[in-house]
């Protein structure tokens, strides 16, 4: 059981795709002008990630190691095409916002990275949990980046969330002020916010580990 616990902890925090592995930087910065876009991109990636992990893990004994990368990519591309068409059919308004970037999930190095470094070496159950944890951690990071950028750049949070989650979630849409720093929703804002969030995570973790080592030292003494 602790193995699964470790997988979940890795995916959500310690080895988070954005803040731990620094993978998938393209979607992490290109689509996170609003928190809603981050949420949509994160969820779409999670679906692909879970499915890709399951498929790769279940065929892992059949794949010759020399050609594994092309095989993984073809699998991922197929899944992305399915997600792309499904979004276009059922969430068309969101698709108009995210459409350009959905296709880019294919080349999202995070997903290929999980196939290569985890799913091809682990059981189907473990890979499913890993895909889910990694995907949710990715979604969480994208919402964090998108939320900060949206708040500073246009003074709102979760604008147009009803397009993604249905009219019932319109209460999420918050407006704090008009205007805002345009720079934050332009590409430089993505780099600036990501940099500061990574720095904040590091500061927080180093403080926590310092505290932990103090507690350990006192309890040992």
């Amino acid at each position: 059981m602790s193995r699964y616990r470790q997988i979940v902890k890795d995916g959500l925090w310690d080895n988070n795709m954005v803040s731990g592995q620094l993978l998938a930087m393209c979607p992490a910065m290109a689509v996170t002008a609003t928190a809603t876009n981050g949420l949509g991109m994160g969820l779409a990636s999670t679906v692909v990630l879970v499915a890709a992990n399951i498929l790769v893990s279940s065929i892992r004994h059949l794949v010759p190691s020399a050609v594994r990368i092309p095989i993984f990519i073809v699998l991922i591309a197929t899944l992305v095409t399915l997600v792309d068409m499904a979004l276009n059919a059922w969430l068309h308004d969101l698709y108009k916002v995210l459409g350009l970037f959905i296709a880019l999930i294919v080349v999202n190095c995070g997903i290929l990275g999980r196939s290569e470094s985890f799913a091809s070496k682990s059981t189907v159950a473990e890979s499913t949990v890993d895909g889910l944890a990694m995907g949710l951690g990715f979604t969480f990071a994208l919402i964090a980046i998108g939320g900060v950028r949206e708040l500073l750049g246009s003074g709102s949070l979760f604008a147009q969330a009803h397009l993604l989650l249905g009219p019932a979630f319109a209460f999420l849409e918050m407006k704090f002020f008009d205007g805002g720093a345009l720079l934050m929703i332009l590409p430089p804002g993505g780099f600036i916010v990501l940099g500061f969030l990574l720095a904040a995570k590091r500061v927080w973790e180093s403080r926590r580990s310092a505290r932990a080592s103090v507690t350990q030292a006192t309890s040992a003494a």
Partner: protein
Amino acid sequence: MNAAAHAPHAHGGKSIRGVMTSVMLALTPLTLWGFYLFGWTAVWLWLLTVGSAMLFELVCLNLAKRGGPASLLDGSAALAGWLLALTLPPWAPWWIAVLGSFIAIAVAKHAYGGLGQNPFNPAMVARAALLVSFPLEMTQWVSPTPLLSGTGLGALEALEHVLFGGAVPDALTSATLLGHVKTEASRGIDLLASVPALGGGLADGVGRHAGSLGETGSWLILAGGAFLLVRRIITWHIPVGVLAGIALPAAIGHAVDPAHLLSAQHHLTAGAALLGAFFIATDLVTSPATAAGKILYGLGIGFLTWTIRSFAGFPEGFAFAVLLMNACVPIIDRFLKPRIYGHGRVQMSPA
């Protein structure tokens, strides 16, 4: 002294504080002239920018546990704030000044490791970020309202305007030369018609026209630059490179297509060209180390400025040009290394 412990074991005798003081001395006449031209709003804006820059410097030094008040007094933060203030529209609201100082000091300087570590010119990072984020506030130009002439705001009224905002009276708003020709060109009116419409006042050298706080008094900028050259704070390479980089393409372009490309004289006297060439591009931290590198760096800034002004969406591009060339400085320094005494030319390894 520690500084002489490393080769070449000789110290030039200049301290950070001494260099910063010289630059501030050189900036004083043109800043006072800017205060006179644009009145009390300019004074308050300058005070706010410099004050908040020093405050953010103190906070960042404390956060990084680096130096403390002694480092604050080296003047580098005050100078960055000062330069930023000189590039702001003189009637800008208080939060432009404070946010600009925050970007310059906290983001562009201390996030990279503090004094001497920043690859990009802090004042220009702040100006570019403000211009992109708040295009309206950053292009609100006014005609000069000299102190004591009775045309501008009194000291308290001006403070109220800076702190609580309020519209700039229509009678005072005015366009800069570069902004004017860009707007007119977008309406299909070419330079042959739009430049004479402004009269000769926009390039009079004295600076009695709309513009940023410190960029209009051309003669005083030249005097300040000459002072820095004499004190050997800067060398001639970067200013000459920048001005040549603007003037040469401008002269050629104007000769070929006078209806769409401004003359070299206009390019040199309008906008931030002079102020930037002497005071901004010459920043010691973010410019190349060798003479040839400095000339190349200056030419690049000048040429990019001319290109942005002539063909891009923004009327003025000096800040963007400086930032782009800042990014090239490591590569310039790598390929224009001086020969080490006793060795042949350094072979560039492919790594």
